[in-house]
């Protein structure tokens, strides 16, 4: 569970790092990713791997459109109008899926099958292990991508200052498109993993607030932070629900988040908050 939050949080962090956008539609994109994957399997009858690749590609396309419609016109407008427009997109998507996919939830088979393995006496679904591996793999990929590749640097430059990035010869609109494509592709991956656990329905979009919580615990803007934060939130809610009271499940996660932030306001990996004067 924690890793699903982590994957969703990674998308949020990514788009914040590279476009300065706090994306309230990320939960809905995860949901859409799951729907698309389901269709690839059910309608197009693709094999699992093919379906995943197709879904990721389709979602990247969705990201390009999303960017064009809801972000690009607002790229100079500051953070809040963009937040509102992503909220609009999420309302649109959460209800729009009914039109295409009907109101029944769908079932997406787990990519790692429904088997379990037993480690130290507890049985763990293979799917959960696959999610964890995926999250860690993506983590390393992103670390490499942002710190070592020119494309990663260019994307970050655009996030920090678009006009100046253009003056460096960076194709700003192309970078923004890449960024959104990448983060919606991440959403698709999160959706593919979340689908079997959550079932494919607009309910998936609700992981948004947990993903936010995860990204903040980890230190907003930090990719490893998103992963660690996701695991943290997942663990806290499971343990809180088990040992204290299951009814307050969400409260444990958020309560501890708040407590945590009071002692470490910048999250785990966040830079201490300060600014140059």
């Amino acid at each position: 569970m924690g890793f699903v939050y982590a994957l969703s949080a990674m998308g949020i962090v990514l788009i914040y790092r590279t476009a300065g956008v706090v994306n309230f539609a990320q939960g809905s994109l995860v949901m859409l990713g799951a729907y698309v994957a389901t269709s690839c399997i059910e309608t197009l009858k693709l094999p699992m791997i093919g379906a995943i690749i197709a879904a990721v590609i389709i979602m990247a396309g969705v990201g390009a459109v999303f960017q064009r419609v809801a972000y690009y016109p607002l790229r100079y407008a500051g953070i809040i109008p963009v937040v509102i427009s992503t909220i609009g997109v999420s309302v649109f998507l959460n209800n729009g899926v009914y039109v295409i996919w009907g109101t029944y939830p769908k079932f997406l088979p787990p990519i790692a099958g429904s088997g379990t393995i037993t480690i130290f006496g507890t049985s763990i679904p293979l799917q959960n292990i696959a999610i964890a591996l995926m999250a860690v793999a993506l983590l390393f990929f992103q670390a490499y991508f942002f710190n070592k590749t020119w494309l990663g640097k260019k994307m970050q430059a655009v996030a920090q200052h678009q006009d100046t990035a253009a003056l460096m010869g960076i194709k700003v609109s192309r970078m923004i498109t890449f960024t959104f494509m990448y983060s919606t592709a991440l959403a698709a991956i999160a959706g593919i993993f979340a689908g079997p656990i959550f079932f494919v329905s607009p309910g998936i979009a609700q992981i948004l607030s947990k993903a936010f919580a995860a990204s903040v615990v980890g230190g907003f803007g930090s990719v490893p932070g998103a992963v660690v934060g996701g695991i943290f939130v997942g663990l806290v809610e499971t343990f809180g629900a088990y040992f204290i009271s299951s009814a307050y499940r969400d409260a444990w996660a958020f309560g501890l988040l708040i407590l945590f932030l009071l002692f470490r306001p910048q999250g785990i990996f966040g830079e201490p908050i300060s600014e140059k004067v």
Partner: protein
Amino acid sequence: MAPKNAKTFTLIAAGVVLLFLPKFIPSNYQMTVINLGGIYMILAAGLNVILGFTGLMSFTQVAFWGIGSYTAGLLAVEHGFPFLLTVPAAAFLTAAVGFLLGLPSLRKLKKFYLAVTTIGFVHITRLILENWTSLTRGADGLPGIPKPAIGPLRFDTMHEFYYITLISCFLLIWLTAVIKNSRVGRAMQAIREDDLAAEVMGVNVFKYKVLAFTISAFYGGLGGALYAHLVGYISPDIFTFEEAVTVLCMLMIGGSGLIAGPVVGATLLTVIPEWLRFMQEYNAIIYGAAVVVMAVYMPTGLVGLTQPYWRRLAVLFSSAKKNGGTG
């Protein structure tokens, strides 16, 4: 002089129309929508103080709404408090909660960290309302909250309740205008624009952040109390994150930081979905699209459009700069 007279005239005309509005609106349904819209307007006005004036992204408005409506509802149902007591009691109690929440979180948390904390507060409040059964009666909700009565005056119908909504909205919106143009309001706006510069100019940033938070809680609590008496039944499942997002959209689409912003935004986002009802299952989709379109074409909010060009530019410029801030 002429334009000023014209403005006064429009205001008076609008006042007269608002005063006699129930006469023109026979339908109980439309009156209900107007009353609910009024309550949203109060919530959005409260958010305007914390987000619009002080620049702190907060989702707590809906939690305050819940706390206020439960306070008023429980006082009225269990202790038989009259309307004139339940509403202030709810507003002040909620303000106190806001104050207590603000103390720890506003001292340290910045920007998005604060926003997520407030999202957490919304979830926690809802869970408490739902699970603290001995106090709130839990998920069953609280039925039988009486309609308002002030002495011999009774406000049983939607048309009668309208006057309570009208007066509350008027007073509370007017109050935001008074705050905005006062020393305190200037301090808040300075914090929004640049909290460090405000601090070195002698503004006790922390104090005014907490104050703004408390005021917005007061608004939320008051709106909640009115809601409880309007609907007569409250339950925890109303006060969700989605509603918090709705209030945020109302303010932003109306124009944050502007006095008329909540008025326009709440009106619009209450009317549009009702108006879209004929689209049946497509209404929410179109509503979502409408929100995107409004954000894209009116990034400074609808009311913002009436501002002179250069002022709008300056507003955009300032928010863009914040966005660009430190990495």
